[in-house]
């Protein structure tokens, strides 16, 4: 039952000089589904965290009210009943080891009577359709499964307002559709107020009641309904893809030659023994539902994860190659950008790549040019960890491109990026590749803007890894 009002909200990060949100005024009516959009790095996450009280709003910086009750004066113990947040990163929202224990933890915090807990937990799990995950270790779940667990916790806590911060960034289309269905049900049957931040606008036009945009001047505005068709059409035009890729022919000297390779997670088989080749100087796209084992395949290719069978790189068993030499050949762009960084400031990070680069394509001038292209210029002295997720991603990709390793494995390189950044990035990848002949193997859920870069398409599904002509 909560109408939310943002009253003259201004927020500046302690280390920043310009506010990320500037005099924001907005009313979010109860029982409505609001879509919050805007380019990455414009403060969507910040706004949602302010609205949950995870970031404290300093005095005199405006007001957030739930039904005329100021969030700042709301007792901390009542907050979770009022508002809950699903995080962008599915790995960062759990405190316990198993699904069951996490739900119990949340309900204990809400001071729910232990007598009724079992029922509430079962109902929440059934609502999301994940009863079978109840006793699983959260660490062993896929991104989509984790987000479903996060939703189950929110359902069990019975919060009035549900905020979601780009919840589908590492979720496959099937899990996304399933989660969206549940959210609509929560709005229609339970009268929840839902506010969801996303930059991928697919499917929302018929589902949401309100679209709110973050503007260039750091304010918010609600998009009038007559403008919706144009707004959503502009996005789906860019998203459309019925691209056909050819199937590769087996080559005598393949880049990678997988012989009876089997991948496992614990005792669970991700990939049945498979024979497969990756081709040199071609870009291969790998798609598949989350949890299918795509990232595990990459970790096996760089020897971070065990596998059975044999993987050859240019004819040599990769287990027999020297770790140091091999790491210079095959670089992995981690899904989580922070994992990649070794230094503190943006300039140091780029300098390290330039110093140890394999080729000399990236001169200081070219790096500056790329920074401008990616809208990262002028941030040399900024501490990496204070960049937005989108900015981190772009810096991470640039650092790895500069390395010019012969092969670059990219795990969800478009994660958390808006369309403008995706276009800039793909342009950069193309120009770089034309000059350096680097081989890219890319895992991506999001195909928008990427298709033109791809030569072959691999599908990882149902424990099988196969070349296919179309991406579903």
């Amino acid at each position, binding site marked *: 039952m909560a109408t939310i009002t943002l009253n003259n909200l201004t927020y500046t990060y302690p280390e920043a000089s310009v506010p990320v949100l500037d005099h924001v005024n907005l009313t979010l009516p109860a029982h409505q589904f609001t879509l919050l959009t805007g380019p990455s790095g414009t403060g969507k996450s910040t706004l949602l965290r302010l609205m949950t009280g995870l970031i404290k709003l300093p005095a005199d910086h405006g007001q957030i009210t739930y039904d005329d009750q100021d969030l700042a004066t709301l007792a*901390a113990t009542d907050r979770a009943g009022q508002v*809950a947040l699903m995080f962008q990163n599915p790995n960062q929202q759990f405190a*316990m*080891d198993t699904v069951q224990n996490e739900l119990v933890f949340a309900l204990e915090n809400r001071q729910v009577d232990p007598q009724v807990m079992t029922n509430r937990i079962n109902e929440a799990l059934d609502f999301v359709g994940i009863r079978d995950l109840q006793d699983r270790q959260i660490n062993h779940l896929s991104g989509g499964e984790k987000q479903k667990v996060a939703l189950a916790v929110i359902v069990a806590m019975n919060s009035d307002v549900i905020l979601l911060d780009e919840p589908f960034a590492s979720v496959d289309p099937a899990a996304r559709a399933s989660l969206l269905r549940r959210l609509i049900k929560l709005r229609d049957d339970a009268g929840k107020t839902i506010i969801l931040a996303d930059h991928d606008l697919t499917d929302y036009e018929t589902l949401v009641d309100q679209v709110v945009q973050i503007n260039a001047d750091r304010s918010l505005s609600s998009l009038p309904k007559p403008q919706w068709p144009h707004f959503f059409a502009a996005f789906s035009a860019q998203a459309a893809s019925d691209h056909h890729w050819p199937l590769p022919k087996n080559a005598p000297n393949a880049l990678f030659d997988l012989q009876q390779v089997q991948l496992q997670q614990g005792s669970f088989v991700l990939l049945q023994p498979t024979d497969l080749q990756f081709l040199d100087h071609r870009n291969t796209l790998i798609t598949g539902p989350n949890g299918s084992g795509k990232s595990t395949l990459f970790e096996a290719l*760089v020897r971070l994860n065990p596998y059975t069978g044999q993987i050859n790189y240019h004819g040599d068993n990769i287990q027999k190659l020297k770790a140091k030499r091999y790491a210079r050949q095959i670089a992995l762009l981690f899904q989580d950008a922070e*994992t990649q960084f070794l230094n503190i400031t943006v300039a140091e990070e780029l300098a390290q790549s330039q110093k140890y680069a394999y080729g000399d394509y990236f001169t200081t001038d070219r790096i500056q040019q790329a920074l401008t292209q990616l809208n990262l210029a002028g941030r040399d002295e900024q501490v990496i960890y204070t960049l937005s997720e989108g900015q981190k991603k772009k810096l991470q990709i640039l650092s790895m491109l500069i390395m010019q390793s012969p092969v670059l494995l990219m795990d969800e390189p478009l994660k958390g990026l808006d369309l403008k950044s995706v276009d800039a990035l793909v342009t950069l990848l193309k120009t770089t590749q034309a000059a350096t002949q680097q081989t890219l193997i890319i895992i991506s859920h999001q195909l928008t803007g990427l298709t033109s870069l791809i030569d072959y398409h691999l599908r990882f599904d149902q424990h099988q890894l196969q070349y296919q002509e179309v991406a579903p």
Partner: protein
Amino acid sequence: MNPSIKLLLLFIIALEISFTTIISLNIALVILATLYLLWRRTSLKTLGWLLIVPLLPAIGLWSTQYINGTGDNAQMAWVLFTRIYAFVFTGATFTLTTDILELADALEQNWHLPAKFAYGVLAAYNLVPKIQHEVKVIRMAGLMRGQTLSFWSPKLYFKAILVSINWSQNLAQAMQSHGFVEDAPRTHYRHVPLRASDWSILVIGIGLLQIGAFAIPWR
């Protein structure tokens, strides 16, 4: 058995054998611990490891004392040798048979430790395997950027600490977003009883320990 009482008893045992020099007591403790572990269905392989792993430090201590010790150095050497095993085996009766979640529950419910502390212990414990993998990943990230991060490399520790700080902040936010409020009352789904039998085991255990230490010390 209540895990907090178990921990207390083992702590008292560890303290007492640190200040006594009775070989028979140490050996008796090792035997009792082994029996307990077998009763709790610990695999023979694990028991084998418990015998092998402390061997090197035990021999080290033994030889140091035997060669350099004063007074009855042979007796003292064997005291140190058996003491290491007594520590390892009694410790194993706790680590191998106790659910850490149950310990956190006991600390919170029986001893009224702040929930923040109990869950902090739990979270740290759950992080250990994650940290091991993370160190591997950090070293790989270094190699891919042309830098070898050895085990004494400051960058490795800087990254690991940074990751840990990040994790702890994330964990705090995760707990908060799931309704956790410091010092606020909570309900308890899993009830950890503190029974009279737990107290009896503690009292009898300490009593037996004194008999072993003072009444019948063979050596």
